């Protein structure tokens, strides 16, 4: 097994420095992974006050667990995994409703894009034009309306360019479930956006 899987030598040096007592090196790790942690926190935790406490809690956990880090994944993936699990614990503790069943289901139904097949050609064109306009603003709201896990997967895959394997490591879900969840999340986004545009066009 490659014990420095995905980690660049700088990460290893940084961790060595932290383990020797140089806490400033930990600041570099925080800066390098802050964006990723923030993305997950914003998608999983709806209460803004709690995000600050959780962010601090996550990095303290990372600092304490650093001597046990075996370099079997990228340091960023490992920190993202800690973040995701901390968020799940928070959701469980707060007993929040957690929609989004991640069970496998048949995604291969050809009926799913029947609506598009039946659309007149110019309707598809109109949608495309509309899609390019105010879509960013509406898309943000639509992403926020998805279940937290779907939001997290969408943002990590598309914005943070993470692979299915990395997403599987972070969430602890099988790759097949990740793919199905991503498919359903994208499909829901597409359908919600299309219905929104059609309503607005009326």
């Amino acid at each position, binding site marked *: 097994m490659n014990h420095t899987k995905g980690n660049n030598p700088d990460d290893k040096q940084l961790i060595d420095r932290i383990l020797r007592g140089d806490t400033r090196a930990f600041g570099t790790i925080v800066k390098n992974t802050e964006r990723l942690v923030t993305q997950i926190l914003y998608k999983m935790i709806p209460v803004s006050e709690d995000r600050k406490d959780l962010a601090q809690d996550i990095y303290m956990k990372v600092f304490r667990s650093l001597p046990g880090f075996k370099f079997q994944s990228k340091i960023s993936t490992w920190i993202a995994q800690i973040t995701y699990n901390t968020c799940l614990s928070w959701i469980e503790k707060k007993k929040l409703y957690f929609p989004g069943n991640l069970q496998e289901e048949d995604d291969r139904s050809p009926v799913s894009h029947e609506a598009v097949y039946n659309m007149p050609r110019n309707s598809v064109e109109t949608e495309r034009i509309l*899609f390019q306009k105010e879509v960013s603003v509406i898309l943000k709201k639509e992403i926020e309306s998805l279940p937290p896990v779907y939001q997290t997967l969408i943002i990590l895959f598309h914005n943070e360019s993470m692979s299915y394997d990395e997403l599987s490591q972070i969430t602890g879900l099988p790759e097949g479930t990740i793919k199905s969840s991503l498919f359903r999340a994208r499909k829901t*986004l597409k359908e919600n956006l299309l219905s929104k545009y059609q309503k607005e066009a009326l």
Partner: protein
Amino acid sequence: MNNSHPSEKEIQQWAADPSGSSPVMNSHMQSCAQCKAEAEIYRLLFSKIKQQPAEEFDFDLSEMVLSQLPKAKTRLSVDNLIAGFLLVFTCCCIAIPVWLFRQNILNMFSDIPPFFIYTIIGSTSIIFLVKIGSLYKKFQNQMRLLNYN
């Protein structure tokens, strides 16, 4: 409905990464306007998701985290210096008189008859063995109390 069309999942995958699809899929996507249109919608969706601005905290996270970390112990802290000085001072207080009066200390023991030396060694050994025996007894009593069976 044309059943030869690929599923929506396949279209999504093709829109995300055409190079990962089969040649049959690629040629269908090139020739079928409906599937191509749907793939185009997904591509736009993906590009718009990518353009979404990343969320940011309105405070310096790294500064906040670093302020919470335990301070690194420097090798030459004041506490360490004082402890080191006290250790050296204590050693000197013992070693210097022993060195200066070493002959007198040796003479002190050389004049003692062997009988007294054997008595001292014997009684010390007996006390030591009695202490060990009582400690072992105490240990066995405690183990018996813990043995719930």
